[in-house]
Structures are given as C-alpha cells and as structure tokens.
C-alpha cells in the first residue's frame, strides 16, 4: 500500500472520526457524559448535545467535504490552481436568489424546503445555465471561456445583491448580510438530509471519475488522444459539482476558502493523483470546516461568529501564500 493511502486510512479517517466524537462536547455549556445514552431525552444537556451540536458538526463535515471536493474538481477541469466554485458564479447565483427571496418576503415552504433555500437553489442553477450558455454561445467550451464567464457573472450578481441591500430595509439587509457570511446555525436533521444527497452524489461521481480528472488536469488534446470525450466530461463534472455546491450553499450560505485551502494542503501531502486526492480532500475538508465551526461558536462568549468569517481569516493569508509559492506561474495560469 502506498504512503498516500496510508495517510488517508491511518491519519485522515481516524481524525474525521475523532472530530465527530470530540467536537460536540466543546462549547460554553458542558453536557454531562451520560448524555450519550439519552439521544431522545428532552433535558437541556440532551437538547444541546443531540439536537444542536451533533447535527451542526455533521452539517459542517458534509459542507466541508462538498466544498473541498468542489475545489478539487474545478481546479482540475479548469487547470487553474485558484479556481473554486465561488469563482464560477454558483455561490453568486445562490446568494442573489436568497437576497431576492428575503427582499420580496418569500415565506412559503414547498415539500419541506423553505422559500429561501429554493430561491438559492434556483439562483445557483440559473448561474450554471448562464455560464454554460455563454460558453456554448461562443462556440468554445474551453476552461478559459467558462472561467471568464463565471467571474463576469459573479461580479454582476454581486452588484445586484448590493443594489437589493441598498433598496431593502435594515432588517432585510441584516438577514442578507448574515446569510452571505456563511452560517451553520440552521443545522438540524432536515437540513442535513437536504445537503446529504448533493454531497453523496457529488462524491460518488468524482470518486468514479478520478482517471478522467487526472487526464483533464493535464491537457485537453492529450486527454482526447487517450480516449476521453473532453468537452462532455468537463460539462458532466461542472454540472454535477455545481449542483452539489448549490445544495450546500442553499443551506449554509457561501462559505469561502474551504475549496481552495483543503485541496492544496492535501495535494502537498498525497500528491496530485485524483485517486488519492479526492478521498483525502473529502475527509480533510470535512474535518477542517467542523473545526472552524467549533471555533466559530466557542471563540466568543457573547455571540457566535459566522463560520465564513473564520474560514476567510484563515483563507486570505493562505491564498496569498499560494500565490507567492506558485509565483508568476499562478498568475499566468
């Protein structure tokens, strides 16, 4: 067994289990140890442990896994070390959807999914359709066309969000701002089961397609000459991962930087072969966001800090380090 596999099985996997077991105990309120035997009880300890912290850690792990996987896939298919789902308009579309739902006071629920979540999903899907449509209309579904389309759409959506915030009242603006910061406080069984199918299907698809990701990450002509239908595969991966990100952003808001930090740290440890990189990034992203969220809810006794602020504080310097490390090449890519 090679050493990257050792790292995944004997370091990351136990670490993920340890994160799940330890993090729910951390926080201002210390539940008693016997709470573990009372998952259905309705005392304060049981409610805090089983109904608030455990779902929150699970949601953080799921979201972290998906966001990290999104980074891995987008960096491979666009051959750009700085590409993440957030540079491609998906989060921007979801954010615009939520902003519109809050601005219009959309308070309906369809099939157990709130109007805000639905608006986020529709916004994200709309962004995917626009970016894909731009690429098709130019007749050039190349990495650069999709990337540029995504960046342009992101900026456009960001300006519309600012306009709606400007036009809305104070309470709407606060709600919009809070959601835009990325937040896992809505974690419960419903939101977990809302995110789970998206992350599970995204992980399954990318897990099966690790050979395709390797080929796409090198060169289109070479990948095609090896037998890969490049445009079709890039679109399948782009759509599958965008859908996964849309599902996560809908519940958790746009939590930035996980998709850039986790894949790059994993690449340094397990290498760039997606056979190892996909499972490693999946686990690392989950652990990373669960720890960040525990920090977010324990760092201040007065109020909870949105987890997006923690990941951004860690991610900003990391992003710069990555730029300096890659030097001129990263800027040219």
């Amino acid at each position, binding site marked *: 067994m090679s050493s990257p596999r050792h790292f995944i099985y004997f370091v990351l996997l136990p670490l993920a289990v340890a994160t799940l077991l330890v993090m729910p105990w951390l926080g201002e309120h210390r539940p008693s140890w016997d709470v573990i035997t009372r998952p259905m009880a309705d005392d304060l300890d049981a409610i805090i442990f089983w109904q608030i912290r455990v779902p929150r850690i699970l949601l953080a792990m799921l979201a972290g896994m998906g966001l990290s996987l999104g980074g891995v896939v987008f960096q491979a298919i666009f051959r750009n070390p700085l590409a993440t789902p957030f540079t491609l308009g998906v989060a921007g579309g979801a954010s615009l959807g939520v902003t519109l739902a809050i601005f219009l006071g959309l308070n309906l629920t369809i099939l157990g999914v709130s109007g805000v979540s639905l608006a986020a999903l529709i916004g994200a899907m709309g962004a995917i359709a626009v970016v894909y449509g731009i690429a098709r209309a130019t007749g050039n579904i190349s990495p650069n066309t999709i990337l540029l389309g995504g960046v342009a759409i992101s900026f456009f959506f960001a300006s519309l969000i600012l306009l709606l915030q400007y036009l809305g009242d104070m309470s709407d603006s606060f709600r919009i701002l809070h959601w835009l910061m990325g937040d896992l406080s809505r974690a419960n069984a419903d939101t977990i089961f809302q995110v789970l199918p998206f992350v599970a299907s995204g992980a399954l698809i990318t897990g099966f397609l690790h050979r395709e990701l390797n080929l796409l990450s090198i060169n289109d*002509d*070479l990948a*095609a000459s*090896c037998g890969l239908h490049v445009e079709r595969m890039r679109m399948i991966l782009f759509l599958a991962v965008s859908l996964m990100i849309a599902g996560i952003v809908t519940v958790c808001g746009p939590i930035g930087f996980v998709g850039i930090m986790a894949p790059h740290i994993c690449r340094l440890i397990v290498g760039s072969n997606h056979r190892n990189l996909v499972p490693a990034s999946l686990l690392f992203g989950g652990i990373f966001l669960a720890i960040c969220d525990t920090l977010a809810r324990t760092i201040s006794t007065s109020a909870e800090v949105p987890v997006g602020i923690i990941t951004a504080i860690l991610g900003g310097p990391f992003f710069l380090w990555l730029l300096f490390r890659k030097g001129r090449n990263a800027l040219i890519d």
Partner: protein
Amino acid sequence: MNSIHLQNLSFSIGAKRLLDNVSISVDQGERVVIVGPNGAGKTTLLRCLLGFITKTEGSVTLQEKPLPELSRQEIARMIGYVPQQLESDIPFTVLEFIMMSRYANAQVGGILPKDPDGESIAKQATERTGIQHLENQSMSTLSGGERQKVNIAAALAQQTPILVLDEPSAHLDPKQRESIQQLLGEIGRKSGTTIITVTHDLNWAAMDFDRIIGMSHGRVITDAPPAEFMTTENLLQIFDAHWTVQTHPESGHPFILPTQHSS
C-alpha cells in the same frame, strides 16, 4: 491494408481554407513525414486525423473504418499521439503519467474499469524508450528531451497500430533532437507501427521515412519517397526558398544546404 486514408479533405475557418482537397493514403507499417512552411496546414491535418476537428468536408478512414463512426476510445486504441511539447509543470510521476495514457485500454466491467496489465505495459514502454531510471521521478523535474521521451513512451503504452507525432523534436537542443529521432527510427523499423509525423527538419525527413508529403497553403504539393522529393524545384515550390540538395557521402541520403547569405 490502408492504415489511414484521407479523401478530398477540406477544412475552413470563416473564409480561410486551412485544408484544401487533401487526399493521402498511408499503408500499415509505412513511415510518412509531412513537411511544409508554417501555416501550411500540417498540424490541422493531424488534428483532423485524430478526430479533434470534426466539421470537415471529405472523408477520413482509419483501419478501413470511417472516422465519424468511431468513438473517442476506439480512436485512442488505433492512434497513439505525441504532442509538440506539454506544459512543464505536470504534477505526476513518469510512471503515473504513462499509465494514464492507457485510459482507453482499461476493461470496463465491475464497478470501476480495470487495467491489470497497465503497469507492466507502462514499464515495457519506459524500457523501450530508455527512461526506466526516471519512472518514479516527477514530470516537472525532467528536461525537454526526457519529457518528450516520456510522451513517446505514453503513446507506445497505448499499444496502437498507428503513431502520430506533431514536431516531436521541436524546441530541443541538437543532441536531444538526435536522441529522439534515433528512438523514433528504431520504433518505426522494429515494430511495424504506422508512423505519421510533422517536422521542420528536412534532413531527418529524408533520412528516416518512406515518404515525404510536402504541403503549402493547405494543399499537398508533392508526395514522394525522399530521393524523389528532395529536389531544388520541389523545395522552391513548397517553401519558396532556394536550397541546394546534396547526397550524404556516407549514408547516400539526400540533404539540404542552406543558401549562403549575401553580406
């Protein structure tokens, strides 16, 4: 048997005709080289052969099968491709990279495709190209010549009856260029693989190939064995340059001498 057959192949982008009524047949085991000035349509022709360009007029058949009826994987099982030069920062080891080229050879069945012989075939390819010592080295640490040998090994690992190469010795220093050309000469002579390559090195074309195809402005101007092809008149027509053709005193191959510049 015809390995490759192009019939009246034309391709345009807007008003610009990049290929104009090109007809070429290459037999199994033949070594054919395409030469011509920049913009003559050589690389476009290779891209049509590989199925990268599809909106063409005319027809292309590989191993007697029409190209449009072949899937990408079927084409990959027929043609191994060596590009001009790849990016230098490929984050894989040499062996990982070569094994990737066997994508179309993996057996589909079960949950994931399997290629049980992939590693041993990749190792045979490194042996044939003399790069066994680089197997575990990262691609990003290799010289241009070594990287090109890895590209050739990757194409060989595809185990195809046809090898297509786009200027395989471009951007290399003379020693590395000679090493790559020798390697390709050996592969061509020993394996019976059909080789079709593009080059600007006319002396190599005259030395190691069965036929030279000269292209200019998207058309085939001359298609002949080296001794017939290498004439001052042909070279003037294709390259619009006055070169002197001489015969090598040892090998007997024709070669060109550049024109003396007037001072």
